């Protein structure tokens, strides 16, 4: 009887399951090339780190008074990347926006790995890396505790929480899907999935608790995602450095974070979609929605730029003015104008539906969004310090060295390594949730009967 009652679209439950399960099939050579590249980058990073620890941070380009530079820039960059994931998975979940289902898994995985990456930087950039644990409140022989007034400790807690929560959130969402692939898999994979699926069978009891719990997790993750980047922004806003010390920072950073996050999602989804042939599931509509999100957040960011400068001028505070003048026309003009163009002007292309629906264009734009956002952090951190207008005597121009780039490369390697491993071993698109938005199979016959 099946033929007469099959739903109109080819998108049957079975189709969905199999298409997504296919992405876990034996990897292509291209995949291994990518993975190899990632690992290579990671090795560079590790080597650099070892040298840093042995010979001291001096190997990097720091110069008085620029005491934070590329490492912290990367830290903020990666934390920013991390944000859209939770946004898409949690906030859009609460808003019940159906389109998220196809993309949220990728975004969420990205979140987890980005936070993992970001979390490394504070440890790398401190002078005595082997004492990083002094930042943790653990009972010790000396009877000393960390200083909870320090934004760095807030960071530690925020990032730590964010990592834990987003990880469990990801794993929770994965369980039914793992169960699904478990039932198709064979060999060691089956064993793995059996373990990961903690015996999920999709009974009504399981679904009942699962859906509730998932709802609450989303409800917790939503304020968390807003708090995390606010806390990161306070690393700067709490300081008295002109260019940092602004009440605007929290919303400004959050918006920027989501902006860069969406950019990164697009950057990641485009190839995945191609590689795994998920055009059916991840449609242009999804990209367009992401683009709209970019447009929104991007506009908030550019508005913040304007506000910053306006306030600097309007405040009449000579230090503030000097700082922003230096930012725009000082030795770092190139950096700040890269930032303004990539984050200020580029998103305006997205007003046109043509661009929004042209995936290649979106991909290119997303790359520039990432670059722009990296430079935003670079400008905020490095330029504000270099041009510190209080004691202009010490102003210095900072130039990154191989050590800076080495660690940065390493961070990309680290991130992509995990991400690639993930997409090959776990469903990169949520199986159950994609099904949820499909029409469930119904039988008119039985209705007639009834």
């Amino acid at each position, binding site marked *: 009887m099946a033929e007469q009652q099959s739903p109109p679209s080819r998108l049957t439950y079975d189709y969905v399951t199999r298409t997504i399960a296919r992405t876990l099939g034996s990897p292509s050579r291209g995949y291994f090339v990518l993975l190899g590249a990632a690992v290579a980058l990671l090795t560079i990073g590790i080597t650099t780190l070892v040298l840093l620890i042995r010979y001291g941070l001096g190997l990097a380009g720091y110069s008085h008074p620029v*005491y934070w530079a590329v490492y912290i820039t990367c830290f903020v960059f990666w934390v920013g990347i991390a944000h859209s994931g939770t946004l898409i998975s949690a906030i859009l979940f609460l808003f019940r926006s159906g389109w998220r289902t196809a993309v949220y898994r990728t975004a969420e995985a990205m979140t987890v790995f980005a936070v993992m990456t970001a979390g490394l930087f504070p440890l790398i950039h401190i002078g005595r890396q082997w004492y990083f644990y002094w*930042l943790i409140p653990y009972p010790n022989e000396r009877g000393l505790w960390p200083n909870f007034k320090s934004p760095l400790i807030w960071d530690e807690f925020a990032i730590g929480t964010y990592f834990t929560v987003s990880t469990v959130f990801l794993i929770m969402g994965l369980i039914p899907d793992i169960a699904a692939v478990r039932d198709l898999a064979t060999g060691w994979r089956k064993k793995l999935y059996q373990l990961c699926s903690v015996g999920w069978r999709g009974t009504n009891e399981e679904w009942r608790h699962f859906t509730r719990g998932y709802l609450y997790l989303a409800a917790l993750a939503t304020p968390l995602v807003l708090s995390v980047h606010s806390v990161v922004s306070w690393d700067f806003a709490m300081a008295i*450095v002109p260019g940092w010390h602004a009440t605007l920072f929290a919303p400004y950073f959050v918006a920027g974070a989501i902006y860069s996050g969406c950019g990164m999602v697009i950057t990641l989804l485009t190839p995945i979609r191609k590689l795994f042939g998920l055009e059916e599931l991840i449609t242009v509509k999804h990209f367009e929605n992401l683009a709209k999100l970019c447009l929104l957040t991007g506009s908030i960011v550019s508005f913040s730029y304007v506000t910053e400068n306006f306030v600097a001028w309007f405040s009449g505070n000579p230090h503030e003015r000097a700082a922003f003048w230096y930012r725009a026309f000082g030795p770092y003009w190139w950096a700040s104008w890269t930032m303004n163009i990539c984050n200020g002007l580029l998103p305006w292309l997205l007003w046109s539906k043509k661009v929004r629906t042209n995936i290649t264009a979106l991909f290119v734009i997303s790359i520039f969004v990432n670059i722009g956002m990296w430079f935003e952090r670079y400008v905020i951190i490095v330029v504000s310090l270099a041009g510190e207008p209080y004691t202009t005597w010490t102003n210095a121009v900072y130039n990154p060295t191989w050590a800076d780039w080495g660690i940065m490369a390493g961070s990309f390697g680290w991130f992509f390594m995990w991400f690639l491993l993930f997409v090959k071993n776990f469903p990169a698109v949520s199986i159950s949730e994609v099904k949820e938005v499909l029409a469930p199979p119904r039988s008119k016959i039985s209705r007639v009967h009834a």
Partner: protein
Amino acid sequence: MSNSVDRRRFLKVLGVTGAGAAAVSACGIGPEPTERLIPYLIQPEDQIPGTATYYATTCRECAAGCGVRVRVREGRAVKLEGNPDSPINRGRLCARGQAALQGLYNPDRVAHPMVRNASGVFEDIDWDGAIQRLTAKVREAQGKGIVFLTGAEQSSFGDLVDEWMRQVGGRHLSYEPFGFEALRAGNRMAFGTGTLPTYDFANAKYILSFGADFLDTWLSPVEFQNGFSRAHAFDAGRPASMSKFVYVAPRLSLTGMNADQWIAARPGTEGMLALALAQVIVTQHLARLPTPPDASRLSALLVGYAPRAVAATIGIDEAMIVRLAREFASSGGGLAVAGGMATQSPNAAQIVAAVNILNYAAGAVGTLVKFGADLAIGSTNTFADLTALMSEMAAGRVALLFVHGANPAHSVPGAFQQALGKVAYKVSFSSYLDETAAACDLILPDHHPLEQWGDSRPRAGVTALQQPVVQPVFDTRPTGDVILKLSGKTGTFQDYLQNKWRARHATNFDQYWMDGLSKGGIYIEAPARTVRLAPTASGIRATAPVDSTGDEQTVVAFPHPILHDGRGANKPWLQELPDPVSKIAWHSWVEVHPDTAAKWGLATGDFLLLKSSFGAQKFPAWITRSVRPDVLAVPTGQGHTAYGRYAKDRSANAFELLGAQPNDYGGRSFTVRASATKTGEHRKIVTTEAGPRELGLGTTEVLPLARAKALHRGDHPFHYEETPEYAKDAVEWWGERQHEKASLGNYRGEHPRWGLAIDLAKCTGCGACVTACYAENNIATVGEELMQRGREMAWLRLERYWRTAEDGGPQGAVNQPMLCQQCGNAPCEPVCPVYAAYHTPDGLNAQVYNRCVGTRYCSNNCPYKVRFFNWHNYAERDGQYDAFPDPLSMLLNPDVTVREKGVMEKCTFCVQRIRGAQNQARLENRNVRDGDILTACQQTCPSDAIVFGDLNDRNSRVFELAGNPRGYHVLAGLNTKPAITYLARVVAQASPSRG
């Protein structure tokens, strides 16, 4: 290296085998060895473990002969401090004096006698062998010409040399690269005496310097700076506060930088100006005319120097001349000085003579210019004598040459080298392998002055005694002993010295001797000698030099204020201490006026090839308005071809440009004509000056004299001082917090609040405090490459901000010592995640090095940018960045932790001294008294600009100064509540314009 000392042996010499090893290896990365404690055989009566002992001795870094106290801990000299008993430096010391320690513990010292073997390389030799060899040489050289070349030696050692030379039929020649021949010649012309008088700056009411850099290199800098600061400082209390200082020279030196007015007269016309001034004074009867014969002489020689006549030639307008003359005479205490190196043009003697005339006309001679207490350096041989010797040597009429305490091969490159080649046998007593020593056949390293007995007579009436304060570091021997041995005499130089002194004061000698030792010398007022115009005075003519022809430039070689003639070049402290004017460290430079630079398309850092008729050298350009457009200025001191790791092959040697011919007064000209060509090479100059301008955002404050005089206690002339409206309740809230604080844990009860007052009107920017800070706090020197990357660690830096006149040219500078302000609301504290930066009960902004993990957040949040990070392990033994290679590590202050890589460090008001004083006070059951604690910078400051004390003690000096209406807090608008009060610089101008 041939003279490198193998560690075990050197440690044996020091006798710190075990502990030394432990200390030193703990610097590196690796397990701590078991320490061994080696007791004394006999407890020295004056050594207490863990407690410093001070010994009075004499600084021999230059001829000024300042008295110093050496701080000795467990047999190591760890710090030099001025000796308050000495009438010369009155307990103050300059950067070069501070760095004497690095001469003592210099890693490049000659560790043992060395002889040049057949193949021409040095090989070790034992002392007895060396002395036998030398005795033979002396015997065979007798009659064939023996010469003993020393530095300025007005001392028993000098006498010994004289005696010995007489004995062997040789002669003793003393040579100083900067011999002030012009000064002597000028005095001879004017007063018929070739001696150098002492100048009483302290009581001068108006100071007029014709290129005499009396604050940095002229005669006795510390003494003069001390005097100058008394005269020039602003003190509302005194009636004629702040005597005006006018500087006449082609370039602004450290001295000129402190002038109220800079007159960039054409080089060589200074004499004319002086005579013109004198002419005005005499013709307008501004001063009491001297008695008849002189009066007629005066008016006779002043004819033809009417301002109108000479104004054009000098290059300043007539009115100015007249005004100067009026001010000078009417001040009732005008002092004019001349004869600096930078102005030592061929007619320098005439200039000095002219200035003497001016002093004489104004009646300064005898009151402020005191003959009688003559300076020792005046009795060194002139440059002419040296050139004579050189020609003798070249002619092969010198068979045996001894060199001690002089390095002519560097200061007279080429010529002396060649002449040296002609000498049969050359013996050096140098303790370093400098250019001259490197060219000698036998090196018998002398003890460092801190290791040996000696004395020095820097000026008549002052006999400074010099005693060994530490065990010899290397296998060296006092040259005095060597000479005595060679001359067949018995006993050591110590006996010789004592006999000399006994001869001077036989009765109750022991008492006399002990007195001398404890005071650091015998000081008596030398009888003044009145001088009158000499008949020769009428011959004084001030002529303008011939105009420059062709595209040749006037190049002025000036003595480096810190490296001097180059003797300081192998001391990392001095290399890393930026030049007070250019703020350039580790290399030399050429000062070019922007206009000239524009003409040649020159940017700062572009190399300029200067080619004089004597030699050529390349210097990176430093574009500055502090030099005349038609003059290029280069510092001496760098460009060593030997002398050690810190000095060798560093930049260019300015002496190369100078001629080796004496000029008519037997001196050396330091201004030459040279062609300047752009080589196209470029380098990043190593400077601490990054932001060239002080934005006028409340960092430095300047008051016009009139305004300053009008101020009363309680006035607040600076708007940044007032708490902004919006901060009012914040301030109240802060008060409450302080209340809460006083009831908590360590903070319970009454505590002092340590504070500092820095008088910008006194600070000259000489940099002594910076080096003192390095010495006291074990601050690492990072070297040229890292300093270029802004990694220098100077906890205390001197920010030099030009004050520009209406014409845009600089009118001196404001020098601001910038160090940790120990804020009451320190922004650096709350951001530290591990409490490494926190507030102590006594108001210090402490930094716990061993707790620091190195997030560097504190530095970002410090508006004063006075926190410094250990980018590398500068204390790692033999590490790539080792800042204390043996035996330099021996001068590390045991009371201060040496910081590891990855920790933040900063000034804490010499907390180790505070704690030491508190411990001592506790032992004596009393409280710490005001003045018990001197921070290193305060202790050494020659102009007494820094005062430390307890701000909660209403009777303390610092409290009184903090209430001074000139006082302000840097960036007070940030409500950081600094503990350092700066007293605004006061300038003679009506409208102070800030650069």
